[in-house]
């Protein structure tokens, strides 16, 4: 039977304003993890019952790296955890990016804000097949680490680094082309990327976010709208936690 794993914290550091990088020692999770999958993290404050979904950012043997932004009390609790403390983790969950399908193809990895972390493990898996385009408000994080795997372009909202604007501005300005797009970021970005992929006629996979309770496909809390009737649910919806979080952009309505 699968179960939650108690994972020791090996390292935790602040890598930006409110952004933390957390390394956990796992038994099976890190080894089974695929780029684009996520885990559920369980806090110890019992007034907060629901686990927090966080994407897999990197793996190294039995170690798992998560990079998260403090968005509220749950993630704030994680940011206080110190070396040697334990955290309960369930996963890996969800489907992840289609690395097999990308074999021999050039892929643009588009990450916006806190959608950047899952792209790092994806870049590691694709290596020189990938070009990463990272969109920030102003403060950069993880950029050097992407550079270890693939070429990187940067866009910032205020123009303080790279191209002024968003990831698509950087794609257009750099004349970047590819056979496939993988994207993760805020909804407005995903909408723009989906439209861009349609215009360029490139297959595009996007990673979605939704409020979750179970994380394993049972509660139907995390659904998104789909263009076709889902084969399991028999309605025009898909579960982000189980059928996603990565979807072909034409499968879902944004």
């Amino acid at each position, binding site marked *: 039977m699968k179960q939650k794993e108690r994972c020791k914290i090996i390292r935790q550091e602040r890598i930006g304003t409110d952004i933390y990088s957390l390394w956990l020692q796992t038994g099976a999770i890190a080894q089974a993890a695929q780029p684009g999958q996520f885990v559920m993290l369980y806090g110890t404050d019992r007034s907060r019952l629901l686990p927090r979904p966080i994407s897999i950012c990197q793996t190294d043997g039995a170690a798992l790296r998560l990079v998260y932004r403090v968005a509220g009390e749950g993630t704030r609790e994680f940011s206080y955890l110190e070396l040697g403390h334990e955290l309960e983790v369930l996963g890996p969950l969800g489907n992840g990016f289609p690395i097999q399908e990308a074999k021999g193809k050039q892929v643009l990895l588009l990450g916006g804000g806190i959608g950047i972390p899952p792209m790092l493990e994806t870049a590691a898996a694709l290596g020189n097949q990938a070009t990463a385009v990272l969109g920030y408000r102003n403060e950069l994080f993880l950029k050097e680490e992407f550079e270890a795997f693939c070429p990187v372009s940067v866009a910032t909202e205020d123009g303080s680094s790279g191209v002024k604007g968003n990831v698509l501005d950087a794609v257009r300005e750099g004349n970047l082309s590819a056979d496939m797009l993988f994207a993760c970021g805020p909804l407005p970005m995903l909408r723009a990327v989906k439209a861009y992929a349609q215009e360029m006629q490139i297959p595009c996979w996007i990673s979605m976010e939704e409020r979750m309770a179970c994380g394993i496909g049972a*509660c139907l809390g995390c659904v998104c709208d789909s263009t076709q009737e889902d084969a399991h649910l028999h*309605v025009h919806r898909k579960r982000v936690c189980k059928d996603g979080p990565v979807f072909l952009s034409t499968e879902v309505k944004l």
Partner: protein
Amino acid sequence: MISDICMGVELAGVTFKNPVMVASGTFGSGEEYGEYVDLNRLGAVVTKGVANVPWSGNPTPRIAETCGGMLNAIGLQNPGVEVLCQRDLPFLKQYDTRVIVNVCGRTKEDYCQVVERLAGEAVDMLEINVSCPNVKEGGIAFGQDARALEEITRAVKKYAAQPIILKLSPNVANIGEMARAAEAGGADAISLINTLTGMKIDIHKRAFALANKTGGLSGPAVKPVAVRMVYEASHACTLPVIGMGGIQNAEDAIEFLLAGASAVSVGTANFHNPCVTEEIIKGIEDYLKQYEIQDIQSLIGAVES
């Protein structure tokens, strides 16, 4: 020390290997949690509410966390009874556990149609959900008026091949009256509580946390209300009661048994720990051993007054 403890309970002629079930809608069809829990260990699997045709449910966000609980407004999304019969029931049949199907509808005819369709299927009991606060028509309209509740119970009972459980809403002034109405209509058992209608507002966005505005509150925050209602309902009628609402561990489950429940359902706690039901069963066994109680049935309603 006693060696042989008896965990079995009986409701309306149906025997259960132990009193621990899962609450409808929190456990899917059982298949998803089957990777985390040995379904053979459970007293029963209670499936997500199912209607005569597929329902696509409410828009998102459907979930909001609250202090010690959560709000949900799934809106009874389900693939329809035909899919349940062809896919989910054969899956559950592989396990040595009881199967209770939760039934929802918009009209009396909807409920009767589902119940009739399930007549020949491998289902041990039917749980009639007249208490979902998240759908506009039907559902709770039947569950908040004693006369309407009695009427729908009677109507469904005519078509039901299996014993029926009426799932009661806590969003009523007098739970005893509702329990008696279910009994008068011919119900074989009652279950409670469904969720309490609640609301959450995001003060930064100045918007409702749920797309549906209101949602059903569940989890430990509702437990004292649920225990009180189980106590009142079990004293107001002679039907066996399935108690639920905020059960997180064996202690909580035992509290419900003492209040008068013959069995319990575990819902929201599955989200915090997917293996929690097995732990609760083990915890109840330990409690029986600790107090040298041979038969769990002697705990039912055994709170001293």
